């Protein structure tokens, strides 16, 4: 097996997770079963952080583990970093609103 730089956890996922610190411009190839996705990173992605595998429209669910981890707060392009600045969940949103915590 060729050493994977990022991991795709579910066939339906919109994001992959970096297994090492990755740099903007890196070509990253992830695969799971028959699905193979190749993206060019638009930003640095640190270990444990996620990047989009496809263009995600504002308001769409973002899937990881095949399940929605939040909704896109803005349009996200393939290869972009996906995190609290552009993706927020129902739970986190509630918490945010109630306690005034800035994500």
């Amino acid at each position, binding site marked *: 097996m060729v050493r994977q730089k990022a991991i795709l956890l579910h066939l339906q996922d919109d994001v992959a997770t970096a297994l090492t610190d990755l740099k903007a411009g890196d070509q990253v190839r992830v695969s799971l079963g028959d699905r193979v996705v190749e993206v060019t990173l638009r930003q640095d992605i640190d270990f444990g952080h996620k990047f989009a595998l496809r263009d995600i429209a504002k308001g769409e669910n973002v899937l990881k*583990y095949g399940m929605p981890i939040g909704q896109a707060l803005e349009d996200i392009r393939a290869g972009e970093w996906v995190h609290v600045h552009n993706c927020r969940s129902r739970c986190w949103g509630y918490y945010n609103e109630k306690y005034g915590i800035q994500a």
Partner: protein
Amino acid sequence: MASKPNKREENVDILGYLRPDGRLGIRNHVAIIYSTHCSMIVAQKLHSLFPEGTQVFGYPGGCALREGPFHKITELGKHSSYAAALVVGLGCEGTDAFMVAEEIAKSGKPVEAIKINAEGGDLKTIEKGSRILVKLLQHASLAERAKMTPADLIVGQECGGSDATSGLASNPITGVAADLLIEAGGTYMHSEIVELLGCGEILAARAVNPEVGRQIKEMIAEAERSCFEAGRFSWGYGNILGGLTSIEEKSYGCLTKSGSKPLQGILTKYGLPPGKGYYIQEGEPGSGTFHGDPEGVNQFAACGAHLCLFTTGCGSTTGGLIPVIKIIANPKRRQLIEDNADFDATPVILGEKTIQQMGEELYHEILAVAAGKRTKSEIYRHYEA
């Protein structure tokens, strides 16, 4: 690790221990049980005289008889790992030593009880207790052996010291191994409902019937409510720095340890699960408190678990009364992996192996431990109780 994962070519022979009540064990110890805090030291001294072949645990409180803990120590006493038991009491406690012994003796195994006050103090009790233990240890050595299959196994799962690698590697491969065990007819359980916020609907959809679905949804909703009310989640700034975007994302990473099989039920009492397959154990039944890792391991033991999988990221020394297979995927913890872990899951993080491959290897490790391979927790006698 050069295993050839193919579950159809299973040739691990598990030679277990057949107990009088029909249970099959993968280990063969004598239990030394203190029935109150006051008899704990004497029980521990007896254990130190016979460290090979005995384990010690007991009633965590003082004089008052409480149903939950009483049930826990008697169910532990009936565990398939124990060929026999010695109960050590003081004499005036509510959890009377003879009462504890009587309950455990329903399993058909030899159980004896001694009381420190009746014997005349520490030394006399240690003397008499030692003679009893010699007899019980000899009895254990004659335990009947019987062949076991993966379908006979009950496996628990606990996590502690989680980090970013837990949700990416350790938990998902544990889920793969759990699925393989259940496909082979075995039983698997985890607890820690508070880590599953946002997973109520998902688990309800996996429930075998609407009642179990309603139960798990309610339990998770209750955990969510109390977290919201307290303004406190299993969630912090460190999680965000590490790359987690939401509580759901963290919960899903935790949920992967459950595999994908139907949820058979919620275990709200100690004792054997009512059937085979995937169960969620409530935690310390009735206590409503968060438990430490070894207590978690022993709760599974009190539900009949033969061994426990333990996923960790930062590392852990956890053991318990049953063998603990520690799984770690953080490549920065090399020394810890070498010294304390049992299953090196770093190849997933290093991008060298898939979750599926490592899950199959972990399943083989479960069978190897069931067949007698000693885990690090056992070698170090991390018999926390």
